[in-house]
């Protein structure tokens, strides 16, 4: 039985038995290469679930949608390792109770689907730990190396060119599981911290603020990067932040549901190299 079929069978059992009220997974999209998030509530619908290497979107963001988990019933959700990390962070930040989740864990190695054993977030600790260990060794993409070798003025010009494209659609924010604030900083107008206009200044501020609010919380699922309709390479900024918190504080976001958020905690001997 393929992994897709195994998971379909499990989904059917869980729904038929009433163990879960909903399965959040992937379905066929408009075109052959696309997959879309689907929400199944009846055992007859499980044939709509698909699982292959095109299933990339991080679905954990749906877990904090308004009211979904408030009836205390359980929900099954297909998650890749970064999705499980996202759930850990959401649980650590008290946004959901991870005991309400049944995780259908999977990963894509090469072009093959691998099932990940476990139902509860705690069972994925090893997988996440090995991700943390291999993180520093992952090769940097060329564009990132190119930016890092630029002078500050060149870097500023590069980002100015990219942020000039931003139309303030907030697809990056909406697609991100970590951006769950009811009233985002851009929605505040007393004072107006970040302009809604898409001039470069406002765009710089928006993208800088979002990257900062995600520091130490981003799991690099790529949802934001894929969602951006004007192809701004957001993954580079968030990656740089993830790299920074790992190197400086040994913090890998989402290792457990009791992990302390990196900017809400401190060590008395945190290194300081630049403070005069």
């Amino acid at each position, binding site marked *: 039985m393929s992994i897709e079929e195994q998971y379909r069978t499990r989904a059917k059992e869980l729904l038929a038995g009433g163990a879960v009220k909903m399965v959040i997974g992937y379905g066929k999209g408009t075109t052959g290469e696309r997959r879309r998030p689907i929400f199944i509530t009846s055992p007859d619908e499980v044939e709509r679930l698909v699982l292959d290497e095109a299933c990339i979107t991080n679905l954990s963001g749906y877990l904090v949608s308004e009211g979904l988990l408030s009836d205390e019933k359980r929900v099954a959700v297909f998650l890749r390792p970064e999705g499980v990390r996202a759930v850990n962070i959401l649980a650590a930040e008290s946004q959901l109770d991870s005991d309400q989740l049944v995780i259908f864990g999977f990963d894509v190695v090469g072009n093959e689907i691998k099932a990940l054993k476990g139902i509860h977030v705690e069972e994925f600790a090893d997988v996440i730990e090995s991700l943390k260990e291999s993180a520093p060794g992952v090769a940097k993409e060329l564009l990132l190396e190119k930016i890092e070798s630029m002078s500050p003025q060149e870097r500023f010009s590069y980002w100015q060119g990219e942020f000039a494209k931003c139309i303030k659609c907030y697809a990056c924010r909406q697609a991100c599981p970590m951006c769950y604030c009811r009233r985002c900083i851009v929605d505040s107008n007393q004072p107006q911290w970040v302009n809604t206009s898409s*001039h470069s200044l406002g765009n710089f501020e928006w993208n800088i603020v979002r990257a900062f609010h995600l520091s130490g919380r981003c799991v690099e699922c790529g949802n934001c990067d894929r969602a951006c309709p004007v192809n701004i390479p957001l993954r580079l900024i968030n990656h740089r932040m993830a790299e920074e918190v790992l190197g400086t504080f040994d913090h890998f976001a989402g290792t457990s549901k009791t992990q302390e958020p990196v900017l809400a905690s401190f060590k008395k001997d945190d290194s300081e190299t630049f403070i005069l």
Partner: protein
Amino acid sequence: MTKILFSDKLDNCVERWKKAGFSVIGPVQRNNISTYAAVERAAELDLGLILTERSIKELFFPQSEPMLQYTIKKDSIETKDFLPPSGQRIIFGARPCDASGMAIDDPLFGWDYKDEYWFQRRNESVIVTIACTQSDDFCMCTSLKLAPDSTKGSDILLRPLENKRGWLVEEITDRGRDAFKAIADIVQESADTAAPLAVVEKKFDLDRSVAWLQNPENFESRFWKEISMRCIGCASCTFLCPTCHCFDIQDEGDTYSGMRRKNWDSCSFALFTMHTSGHNPRSTQSARWRQRIMHKFNYFPGKFSVNSCSGCGRCSRQCPVDMGITETLQEISKLSQ
């Protein structure tokens, strides 16, 4: 024998138009995005795209439009009005769906208040549309009773030649005719034939869908929650749509000076209908999605006799979660059978 513009003469045309006082705008690839921008030479244009990622709407209704600047002095307040930059423009290489989108919005911007920003730009623009010989899975102009060679909103329609050496020229409006006077000797008579147009299959039954939407019993249907479950509430679809036109007036500044701007807004945003009382009549994403569809295919046509959609497909193409108008209307077509 028909009028033909050969593509190797396009650079001459750009030169002539610039000499005649037009700026030339067309589809370009810049910084990893395809959009419309002003060009100096024909080589900068990318006329091989099926459709630009960003729409022509931005040339008439920019994301952020400065309206007036204020400075508060000790005994007075000074204001300085901003109008769009003035100057004739040739938009070369629009697509029929984009051009028709602008025509769809004309009655809206001229409805109860004539929007001078929109109309100044409209009156100073000549839209030269190129008919489509290619389409992708997301194009749906034919479902909206338009076509890959619709002339709605265009001043000139160019039909690509079969031999790919240029375009057949069809003059649609006086404005187009006048603009092409500047290149009258470059356009030649020739027997070249036009290439076959793209075949765009109808994706849904528009009339049946609209009838379903107009039926008040369907307003509270469970369909709305089911179809919009995966919508994340971003503004990708509304911002890229050539016909979406909601905006918000924002004052950016402080106690001493600032700028009043007209910025794009989106009915998909959670706070779009938030009242100062704290009540939000569209507090769920399904209510917001329902409103989007109802507005485009029920309320807007009710007022202006035309659907607020030109079938360009950008909403579906760009949606981060593979949603868009097409699927909703397809499902509604099925429901109303």
